[in-house]
């Protein structure tokens, strides 16, 4: 009962936070992705042939939606938790009888809400260009949700370990963005040479993008159950690590 109330308080605070600053959190992805769809999907994509039997525009829509989910769930948790820690606002949660797992669940849920909301906005924008297909709504929604959980957890760990504002932009800029672009958002892994295909298979984002694409348009470069297993595996590991960091008080307790 107490935990449920604390959890709800935390989630509502997290949600209000990013909605209050919507010009920073909701508007930019709408604009950027509209440009992606226009330039890559329509202008350039119009001149490219089909990939796996679908138009280039249809092919990239799922990847762009999922890329937005990834970057926004991550960004939400990393910036919110880091500033909570930086302003020492975290002390409110440490003084009160809020268990660590509720703290983690609260922030992660905030990240999921933002990721899913941005994903929905992006999906809505793609519909201005082409109707959105959905072959298997369960697969599409569940992989999107798991991806949001995974990257919210990753953002949380980044925030806990970060000691400066630089530290919270290094991972998004130097790890997440390259991995997303190389995760088969704009192309099929089948188009790559054997070596690059093998290397690409080491990129976990590739699995999530393809599983999501499978849910929407029924096309995938990877085995869908394997994608779920990989995503689930990462979630388990990162959850355990987050709880361990909270338990030790890393970065938040002396």
């Amino acid at each position, binding site marked *: 009962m107490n935990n449920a109330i604390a959890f709800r308080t935390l989630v509502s605070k997290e949600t209000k936070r990013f909605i209050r600053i919507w010009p920073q959190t909701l508007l930019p992805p709408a604009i950027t992705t509209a440009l992606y769809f226009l330039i890559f999907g329509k202008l350039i994509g119009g001149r490219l042939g089909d990939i796996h039997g679908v138009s280039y525009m249809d092919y990239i829509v799922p990847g762009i939606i999922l890329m937005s989910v990834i970057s926004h769930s991550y960004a939400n948790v990393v910036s919110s938790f880091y500033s909570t820690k930086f302003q020492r606002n975290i002390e409110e949660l*440490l003084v009160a009888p809020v268990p660590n797992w509720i703290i983690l669940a609260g922030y992660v849920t905030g990240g999921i809400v933002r990721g899913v909301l941005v994903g929905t906005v992006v999906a809505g924008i793609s519909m201005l260009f082409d109707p959105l297909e959905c072959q298997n709504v369960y697969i599409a929604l569940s992989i999107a949700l798991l991806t949001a959980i995974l990257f919210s957890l990753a953002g949380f760990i980044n925030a806990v370990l970060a000691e400066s504002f630089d530290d919270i932009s290094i991972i998004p800029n130097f790890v997440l963005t390259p991995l997303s672009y190389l995760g088969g958002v704009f192309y099929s892994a089948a188009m790559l040479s054997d070596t690059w295909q093998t290397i690409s298979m080491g990129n976990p984002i590739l699995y999530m993008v393809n599983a999501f694409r499978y849910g929407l348009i029924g096309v995938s470069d990877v085995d869908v159950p394997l994608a779920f297993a990989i995503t689930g595996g990462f979630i388990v590991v990162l959850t355990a690590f987050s709880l361990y960091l909270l338990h030790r008080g890393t970065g938040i307790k002396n």
Partner: protein
Amino acid sequence: MSMNALSIKNLRKTYQNGFEAVKGIDLDVEAGDFFALLGPNGAGKSTVIGIVSSLVNASSGSVSIFGHDLYKARNLAKTCLGLVPQEVNFNQFDTAKSIVLNMAGYYGMPRKLALQRTEHCLKKMDLWDKRDTISRRLSGGMKRRVMIARAMVHSPKLLILDEPTAGVDIEIRRSMWQTMKQVNEEGTTIILTTHYLEEAESLCRNIAIIDQGRIVEHSDMKSLLARLHIDHFILDLARPLAQAPVIDGYLIERVDNTILNVAVPKALGLNRLFSGLSEQNIEVTSLKNKSNRLEQLFMDLIDAKKPEGRDE
């Protein structure tokens, strides 16, 4: 036996950089007490408070709040405690009301009760008409009161305030004293740290003085003050003096050429001082008691307990 609101046993804290901020502290605060924790900057007051309020991990020792051991029953201990930290630590983009309301949520309070308690506490802190102001735009004193309201929202049995009146003007300070007195009279145990020694003197019944991570004094305010045997007076002179007069038994310092600062041992009294001054033809126009008795005591204690051979 009455239960202690706070009981600390052999508490130690060594920070990660190897600095030992708390060196084995024992402290008991009775339920219902109004208790002052004094000590110079860096003495370790906030560290002790941090440990008690789960913000800092102790290196060793034990803490219990109303009988709930911090390590065995942390959540029960936490529910008994409200903390007003030394530095502003709320989200400065939130309104006063949402800061207090969210805290109620963290303590698991149902919405309806949370709203009632929030209103009650903000009104008590004279902040109700500022409830929708973004807290960043509140004055320093108001921010402090927001933190007091936040600490009281779950009606804790023990309220710890780390320098609650630092940077607060006289008028507000007095009204905060009034409020704290009232809260204490209603049954809440209060522990307070402060550098305004008159504050401790006028509010608190019991006192501990901490210096360099150790308790150097732990007693009740009355008997502590009774041990003071020197009064300090400021004398205004009619005519300028080139140097301080010498009168046996009194320590006289010249503040400037018409003001003297005199340490008067209670045993000697004032008569001998004045006859001495008259003999030297020094005319006094007015006399003020310098009310820093506690401060003096404080310095004396800390000097007295300094380990031998230290040269600072």
